[in-house]
């Protein structure tokens, strides 16, 4: 069989093991819903609504366009904060991994950034820059940047100097060296930072909205909390988690698979 056809066959066929894993994931989800249903039946009060009640609430909120509106606002903040955190974190991480002096200079800042509670950053950003979207996004990005730096710095330290020597020996341009020799070695680290970043950022965005915004899922959760509306809280949480999981499953994972397909 020609190598092209063989490679294609290997990437398109689904092995029995991965089919079994898929069934296990589905079974795990069903067990979770079942346990929730049982818990709701046993508790029998409004602090733990049934899955069906939550689904019905999601439907109502979608029909009234309240949920899509708040979701869109929150997603917008997530996207901007995520992009800013990844860009700044990746650049600083590469610099710290590449130059020892840069690492020595910024290391103390990094330790500080990793250990300041998210809540403190959010409060300070609102106090210093006002209760506006940019302060909210800045607070989220500041919370995420240190973790991106740590991951990318490890990647930059692990870059194989022998491959960079090949680029130097053949006089490749800086651009080609960066894009085709250096950056591909960082891809696994960038993807790890992106995936962990997404899960962290959307949680922080909700806190930021809860504390100082007048729209978004976090703001709505606060409203529901004031009225002790647990069904509303779970409906918005589930809807937003579903969107984030979809982004993870349909964008980040396929992108990672595509970029690391050479690993076989």
């Amino acid at each position, binding site marked *: 069989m*020609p*190598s*092209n056809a063989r*490679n294609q066959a290997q990437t398109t066929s689904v092995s029995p093991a991965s089919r079994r894993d898929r069934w296990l994931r589905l079974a795990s989800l069903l067990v979770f819903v079942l346990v929730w249903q049982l818990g709701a039946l046993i508790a029998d009060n409004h602090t733990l609504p049934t899955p069906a009640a939550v689904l019905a609430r999601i439907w109502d909120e979608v029909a009234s366009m309240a949920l899509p509106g708040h979701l869109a606002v929150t997603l917008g903040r997530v996207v901007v904060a995520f992009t800013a955190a990844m860009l700044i974190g990746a650049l600083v991480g590469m610099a710290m991994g590449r130059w020892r002096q840069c690492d020595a200079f910024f290391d103390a800042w990094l330790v500080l950034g990793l250990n300041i509670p998210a809540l403190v950053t959010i409060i300070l950003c609102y106090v210093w820059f006002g209760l506006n979207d940019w302060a909210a996004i800045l607070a989220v990005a500041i919370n995420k940047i240190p973790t991106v730096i740590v991951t990318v710095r490890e990647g930059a330290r692990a870059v194989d100097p*022998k*491959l960079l*020597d*090949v680029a*130097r*020996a*053949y*006089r*490749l341009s800086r651009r*080609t060296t960066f894009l*085709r*020799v250096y950056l*591909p070695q960082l*891809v696994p680290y960038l993807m790890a930072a992106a995936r962990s970043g997404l899960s962290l950022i959307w949680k922080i965005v909700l806190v930021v909205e809860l504390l100082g915004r007048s729209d978004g899922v976090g703001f709505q959760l606060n409203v529901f909390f004031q009225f002790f509306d647990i069904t509303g809280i779970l409906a918005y949480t589930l809807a937003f988690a579903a969107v984030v999981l979809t982004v993870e499953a349909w964008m980040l994972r396929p992108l990672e698979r595509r970029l*690391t397909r*050479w*690993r*076989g």
Partner: protein
Amino acid sequence: MLEIQIDHKRYPDRGGRPHLALSGLRLSVRQGEFVCVVGPSGCGKSTLLNIVGGLDRDMSGRVDLDGAFPEDIGFMFQEPRLMPWLSVLDNVLLVARAADPRAAAAVRERAVALLRAMELGDVLDAYPGRLSGGMMRRVALARAFVNEPQLLLMDEPFVSLDTPTANRLREMLVEQWQRCGASVLFVTHDLREALALADRVCFLSSAPARVVLEHEVELPRPRQPGCAEVGRLQEALLARHPDLLGGLPLAGHARANCEGDAHA
């Protein structure tokens, strides 16, 4: 074609003290000549190639390429050093130079033809991780020749391969060298390999290395390290210069004649 004059090359040893690797080393390679450099382990053979290839500029002395551009140098390292995320063809194309964008198709054709000549036509789209050690060396050899270099630097490129594979690679190397007429500076610790490949063999002393003997090889081609003539020539050389590969520097800078040594 190539004139090397290295007065001093120092680098810090494990204790941080300056270690003199090369001292008073003079070496020249004529246009189209195949020169092998042989010396004891750790004497500075790879350092010499790194200096000529522009990977190490921290030395006193000069390297004169006689009008050739640094871009006209091909480099084959001890390990294949292929980019694992690029296909076989893309690894070769990564370093291939096109005079202008319209020449890109011609460059691609040249790369494919070269890979076919290396018996790699079936794996053009495969990733290096799927190849055997011998196949990866062939890709590295194709990469070294793709720009039809004026000077080819080779740092023990066939080390740790089994004998038939290494012999086949040597045949391919000689074929390509004779086709494109490049000057070759080939570093090895294997005297038989040097005698099988070279027009001239230069022997280095132990560190600080300098050339202590040059020997013109006048055996007819094709030759292999295992052939009787090469064996006899090696024995004759070592009988005449017993300290040659023992790590002890020889007095003077002798120039031996192939026939005279071979029949000694």
